[in-house]
């Protein structure tokens, strides 16, 4: 069921940090296609280039060379603000460290992306509560991160990521700070979002148990894609 044009397409992506004799080549030519609606896990030892690739995929960073098409758009040619607008429109982020705003209620955290989109108060409230409902934290809307457990914080972060109904959800070790029971809950939530809301999920992880939830596993090694493992799709 491969769709004609992949949502993400990378061709010959390289990334060099620094210059001169201290320059370090993190990516040595990545070719990668991701279909819309896929659930991709990115695996690899540290230093293999998976985080750098995720940063480029998340439009947070630009490649040194190569082509990166997102929905047919050449991201490598966009400037800082254009990439910010692309993130605002299409992407949702979930981080290992949750990265919620401190002293701010769950609802205000979830509403934040909508605020930048210029949505009005009612729309923000309705969409924010719906997103919290989806992650099962509707009752906790007025709690600050300090009043929530790690698993709950990560679910608020996921609510924040999906409140804009993004095309792609990027998760950077979303279960890295959680015990295995909470981790499985988070993975089930991501699987549900992928299956029932049609969100393309890209996840970095180093735990094979978590990667097992994905349909496609991309293995990185030494700045290159070592192999792409297609799994049985549900």
């Amino acid at each position, binding site marked *: 069921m491969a769709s004609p044009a992949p949502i993400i397409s990378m061709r010959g992506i390289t990334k060099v940090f620094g210059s001169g004799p201290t320059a370090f080549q993190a990516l040595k030519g990545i070719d990668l296609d991701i279909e819309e609606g896929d659930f991709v896990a990115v695996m690899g030892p540290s230093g293999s280039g998976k985080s750098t690739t995720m940063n480029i995929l998340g439009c*947070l960073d630009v490649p040194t060379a190569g082509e990166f098409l997102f929905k047919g758009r050449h991201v490598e040619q966009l400037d800082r603000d254009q990439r*910010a607008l692309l*993130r605002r429109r299409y992407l949702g*982020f979930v*981080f290992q460290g949750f990265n919620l705003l401190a*002293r701010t209620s769950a609802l205000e955290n979830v509403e934040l992306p909508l605020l930048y989109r210029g949505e009005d108060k009612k729309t923000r409230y309705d969409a924010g509560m719906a997103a919290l409902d989806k992650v099962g934290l509707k009752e906790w809307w007025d709690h600050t991160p300090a009043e929530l457990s790690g698993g709950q914080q990560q679910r608020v972060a996921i609510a924040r990521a999906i409140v804009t109904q993004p095309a792609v959800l990027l998760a950077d070790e979303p279960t890295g700070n959680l015990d295995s029971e909470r981790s499985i809950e988070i993975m089930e939530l991501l699987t549900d979002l992928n299956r029932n809301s049609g969100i393309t999920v890209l996840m970095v992880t180093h735990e094979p148990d978590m990667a097992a939830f994905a349909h496609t596993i991309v293995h990185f090694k030494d700045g290159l894609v070592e192999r792409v493992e297609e799994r049985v799709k549900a």
Partner: protein
Amino acid sequence: MLGTTVILAFRAINRHKLRSFLTTLGIIIGVAAVVTMVTLGNGATAAVREQISSLGANVLQLRPGQGFGRGGGGPRPPDFKPQDLTAIENQLTGVRAVAPLVQSSGTAIYEGSNWSTTVYGTTAAYFEVQSWKADTGRLFLPDEEEAGKPVCIIGNTVRTNLFQGNDAVGKRMRIKGVSCQVIGTLATRGQGGFGDQDDVVVMPIKFVQRRFTGDRDISQILIAVDDAYDTSAVQGSLEELMRERRKVKTGSEDNFNVFDTKQISDTLTGTTTILTQIVAAVAAISLLVGGIGIMNIMLVSVTERTREIGIRLAIGAVAREVLLQFLVEAIVLSCLGGLIGLFLALIASVAIAPLMQVPFIFNVKVNLIAFLFSAAIGVVFGYFPARRAAALNPIDALRHE
């Protein structure tokens, strides 16, 4: 976009109430200090002007000697003669009214009350020079002046203390042991720069000379200058005339002096104005320090909130929005500080003005300028930290611990 950033700025300020308050404290104190100082200074200037103007506008005071506190040694310069008065009246142009003055102090008695006061011997012209009107009764008649009749016009303080505020016109009282009839009472003038101006008994000069001073000398001459003439030109002619009449040799110093009340007024108000400006300048420095305080806290805040900025950028905030948020935060803080400062200044000025015996004058311009200045401080000192925040790389910012 501005609406969004204003919401975000208020949320950020609200999340850190204590820090926000401490940040604004410098501005609060600065604005309060500047506005209080200027308000009180303006009040003091107004008070000085008020006191001086009570001496009469455009009035020249001619006295023997070389001015206040000078010419200590040597023989006392002679007083003025009636002929001097006539000469000024006839030879000087640009004069509206001329009044001679002799002073004596003594006790006034009416029935059981007595009151120690000052007796002024003068003519009806005195009231014209001073722009002073009778409250009840009348001023001197020409024949009363000419004959030096025992009549008197009393100030309000004398009336209060001697007649308990009752009608005094027509009553006979005793002054320095001499009986005299009250023909009028004077309108209240209040506290002047030289004591209670209402504590006075005014009598015809000839009576005072005959019964109290014992000679025909005049200790002071007051000259009201016609509005159409230049006071300093008239003063020049007056000095020339007196040098001639008092036979002051060319090159030697005058044995008399002329005070221009307007000049005194200008000098004194000028002094208070300069003092106000100096104090306000010192206070303005504290305002500047307050601004630097805001910049300091905002810079710390940018570092402390690096991760937050990273989150905002990752979520899709453009650099401009982050810059605006921090700038708006700084402006809101400094404006809030400005408003609180103005409010404190209002309270302080109203409380302190009576203690300093100066009027409280609310100056819209000073308040407005101080507020706009505090807002400008927010912009100027908020811009640098805001730009630093906006320039952060989202990846580095997210990794920041």
